[in-house]
């Protein structure tokens, strides 16, 4: 048998380089999450960082051990004999319990944040309907009555691209737009619907993601915390134009929001109905 020890040394080296690349690029945040622009996103980012720290340490530890063992115990001579060793109960129990404990912590923190983020929105939240279609987003705002008119794909027609029920009185004064504007620091609850296939309402900067499912309404509420313009890509494969399905979100002050809203058409004007 040819001497193969050199490959052990090379493997150890390769693994060390891998660890270094990982630690430097990720530790130094060469590439990172988009700058945060929402309140609940802080929880997500925190959990992300904590998990990264834990898994990162395990990654480094295990790989360094692997590199060390592979280098240290490579075959060096024919007479050398491996050390017969079967098992070590205390050790095995230890490294079963430690991951279990750490993971319990992560589960607890994760589900807690999850229920806060997914829980019921505050009473004063501004309801907005988000409608996904191949390959665009549409948005519906409540009028003065603060209520969203009914949506159903069966109402969709050329003159009614939003699919709002023309007979629903609550919908008459609703405002429709193809760009999403939301007021700063005010809770917004997005009711997400789809006209055709699955889509996913994804705002990377706001850490928002929720699928749009035809036949049912999903919900996600958030508070935008940074003024700015953000992309709304679609995150669920929705057809040939999936990659061009992009909406625009604008977070602005209350005043700017109100004046923008006032300029948008209502359902009544769109459908030629009386208010």
């Amino acid at each position: 048998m040819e001497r193969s020890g050199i490959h052990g040394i090379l493997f150890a080296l390769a693994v060390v380089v891998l660890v270094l690349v990982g630690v430097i690029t990720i530790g130094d945040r060469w590439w990172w999450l988009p700058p945060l622009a929402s309140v609940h996103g802080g929880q997500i980012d925190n959990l992300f960082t904590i998990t990264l720290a834990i898994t990162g340490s395990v990654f480094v530890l295990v790989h360094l051990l692997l590199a060390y063992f592979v280098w240290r115990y490579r075959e060096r001579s024919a007479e050398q004999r491996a050390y017969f060793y079967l098992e070590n109960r205390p050790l095995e129990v230890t490294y079963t319990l430690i991951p279990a404990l750490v993971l319990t912590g992560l589960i607890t923190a994760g589900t807690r944040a999850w229920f806060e983020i997914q829980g019921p929105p505050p009473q004063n939240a501004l309801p907005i309907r988000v409608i996904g279609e191949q390959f665009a987003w549409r948005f519906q705002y409540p009028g003065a009555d603060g209520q969203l008119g009914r949506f159903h794909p069966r109402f969709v027609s050329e003159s009614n691209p939003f699919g709002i029920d023309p007979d629903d009185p609550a919908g008459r004064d609703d405002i429709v737009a193809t760009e999403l504007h939301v007021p700063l620091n005010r809770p917004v609850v997005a009711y997400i619907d789809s006209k055709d296939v699955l889509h996913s309402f994804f705002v990377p900067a706001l850490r928002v993601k929720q699928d749009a499912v035809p036949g049912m309404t999903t919900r996600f509420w958030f508070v935008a915390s940074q003024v700015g313009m953000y992309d709304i890509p679609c995150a669920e494969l929705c057809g040939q134009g999936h990659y061009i399905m992009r909406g625009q979100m604008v977070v602005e002050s209350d005043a700017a929001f109100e004046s923008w809203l006032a300029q948008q058409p209502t359902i009544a004007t769109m459908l030629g109905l009386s208010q």
Partner: protein
Amino acid sequence: MADVARPQGEQVGAVHAPIRTYLTVWGWLFVLSAIAYFVDIIHLTGWLKVVLLTVLALMKAGLIMAFFMHLRFERLTLVYAIVAPLILLVAMLVGLVPDGVAVFVRR
């Protein structure tokens, strides 16, 4: 000697029930089916109906598996090996049906 010659591991002197037992089980299956039928046609509703029918169905399934499918006379390990995986179907039920309800709520 004939027993030894049996190929492919057929049970030597396998234990099985006398024909009477099969007839009794058969009878019980009719009785249980009839009860289930009556639970439905007397218009019992709600949880009571669901629970009753489920219990009756499980009883019938148990009888069929135990006697007709012979599990009553097999080694216990085989019984466990067959019944245990069915827990996963319960897991599937627990995972899917609440979601069906959630969809109904969000229509």
